[in-house]
């Protein structure tokens, strides 16, 4: 297996958000993590990526045989963990392509691979940019500066395509996307599906899952995975809403 999360407990600003979460992801699988607002979906994504501001108070995360929580965020990235940000941040004055080349070469260096020179890199960029319908102007602008919401999300998946992670976590990548942008993003992600690459899709709505069809669907509620199933679980959620699961849980507890 690629990722094993056991009894994960996480606090942010003294509030417990994840309260014993378990999740196992094998190589090549696509998992959707769904849940209502405030259930801890984004916390899960960000803790996997090593974001500051969270305190892991219990449990373990094993990634590719390593204790993920011991690794700095940049080492996790170099080891193949990628997170597509919900709100990609702007970096003024730094060319998008330059940023990505620095990132890729840093990952390649970690893997003991030679750095790509400008010509090799541009070849790679052209190929991947076509996938996400990124034009030259977007590549030359400063990182995320002046990008629309949809462009930012496309840029995230473009970065993923270039960095070729083993584990990709998409944090609400569908939020703020119109249907055309959603299709472009989904196409990009689908083309990156492979037996060696696992993807965790964190989303509030099942809409994205019409385009990125998951192998497994999990419902996160109250800081735990409360139900897991196949594709059909997402459809059921859409039909009945999250209230249904929460009511059922309350019933089970009562």
């Amino acid at each position, binding site marked *: 297996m690629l990722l094993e999360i056991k009894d994960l407990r996480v606090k942010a600003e003294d509030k417990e958000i994840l309260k014993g979460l378990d999740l196992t992801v094998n190589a090549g699988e696509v998992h959707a993590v769904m849940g209502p607002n405030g259930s801890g979906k984004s916390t899960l994504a960000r803790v996997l*990526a*090593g*974001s*500051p*501001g969270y305190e892991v108070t219990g449990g373990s995360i094993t990634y590719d045989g390593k204790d993920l929580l011991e690794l*700095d*965020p*940049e080492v*996790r*990235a*170099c080891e193949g963990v*990628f*997170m597509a*940000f919900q709100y*990609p*941040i702007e*970096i*003024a*004055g*730094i060319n998008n392509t330059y*940023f*990505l080349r*620095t*990132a*890729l070469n*840093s*990952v390649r260096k*970690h893997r003991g691979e030679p750095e790509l020179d400008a010509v090799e890199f541009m070849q790679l960029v052209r190929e991947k940019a076509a996938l996400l319908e990124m034009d030259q102007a977007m590549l030359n602008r*400063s990182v995320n500066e002046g990008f629309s919401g949809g462009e930012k999300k496309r840029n995230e998946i473009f*970065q993923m395509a270039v*960095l070729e992670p083993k584990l990709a976590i998409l944090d609400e990548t569908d939020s703020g996307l119109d249907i055309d942008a959603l299709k472009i993003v989904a196409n990009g992600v689908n083309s990156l599906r492979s037996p060696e690459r696992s993807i965790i899709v964190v989303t509030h709505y099942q809409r994205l899952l019409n385009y990125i069809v998951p192998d497994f669907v999990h419902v996160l509620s109250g800081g735990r995975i409360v139900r897991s199933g196949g594709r059909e679980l997402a459809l059921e959620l859409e039909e009945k809403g999250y209230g249904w699961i929460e009511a059922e849980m309350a019933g089970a507890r009562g």
Partner: protein
Amino acid sequence: MSTSADTIEQLATREYQYGFETEVEAETFPPGLDEDVIRRLSAKKQEPEWMLEFRLKAYRAWLKMTEPTWHNLKIEPVDFQAISYYSAPKKRPELKSLDEVDPEVLRTFEKLGIPLEEQKLLAGVAVDAVFDSVSVATTFREKLAELGIIFCSMSDAIREHPDLVRRYLGSVVPYTDNFYAALNSAVFSDGSFVYVPKGVRCPMELSTYFRINARNTGQFERTLIVADEGATVSYLEGCTAPMRDENQLHAAVVELVALDGSTIKYSTIQNWYPGDSEGRGGIYNFVTKRGKAMANAKITWTQVETGSAITWKYPSCILQGDNSVGEFYSVAVTNNYQQADTGTKMIHLGKNTRSTIVSKGISAGHGQNTYRGAVTIGRNAQNARNYSQCDSMLIGNRCGAHTFPYLEIKNTSATVEHEASTSKIGEEQIFYCQQRGISTEDAVNMIVSGFCKEVFRELPMEFAVEAQKLLSISLEGSVG
């Protein structure tokens, strides 16, 4: 993330890279300043009578002046009688080649990364190296001489080109200008002199490296650059200084004279010793830099200020001639306990004069960074235009950024724009970079260099690379 915190700690506690001292037999005046010291200094330098007179007048003016207090700086009082006003490497024969230079001095240059042997071979850069108070080597002089360009030490210029020096010295910064300029005029030790004749485009970047060396010796450089009608010159100045416990005073004066239709570009990288991480030691840098642009002339100041415990510096332009242009591009970094009060003055006197100010202040640690700028549009400056942009970046919670823009407009046809911003280098920005595999240090460097981009692109290429390196050294350990 304890490992990265440790790394940052190690980097932060690393010693100043250029902190070493060269043992050269030096002849140094005992500390103290009076008219007799000035007479001896002038005699030592075999100066003509008019030069001594200039110094004495400046000294007498200085005695009546007091140190400025309008700045936003906390300064320990300086005891001007505790400073030695002359220090020269003792062996100073007439040098025919670099082989005759004191090997110890040459080694110092090599440690600083400016091996003169290599510099000679490097195309395009002539170096007039100031070691303490006296020039020890000048290269490319002959090649420049063919074009009629004079590039030499100020001491040599006073002896060999007295008419030019006499005509222009003090013409832009009079000795009565301010406390530090008066002091400099009285006791300046050496510096560079450049004259580019009419219509000549200087074919190479001219550069000078300054270095404070002997203990307790304040250094008072004096630089004068004259571009005659239609001439073009680009001058680079970069400096490093060895580690010290006591504060050292550095009060330079730079004057630029841009005659009709000429262009002067003056670029500085300032990396004097900034003091240790507790704020002990470090250079006091009180500099007066000013240029005068005549009709259709252009002066560009570009500075990257990373060093010194205290920086007090306002490279300015007097836009005297019609259609003249003044530009100021600045990056100032304050880390640990450094303080900087820097900016520019653009004085529009001629018609259709234009000026641009781009200032980037970066504060980290307990650093305090002040931008102070004045734009003056004179009564006769019809259709003058100014654009000012002042951006501040804060790294951490203990530093400060301050902006004091002054505007004085006496002509209603003027167009003046001012933009200012303050941003904090965000945890989220750094995390974003890390999540893509980029280390914290590299992330900070990247974000900062993006912030400074508009200034860096004004620097000559080789300087831009050095500036970027310096910036990352200066900010090491600022994020934890």
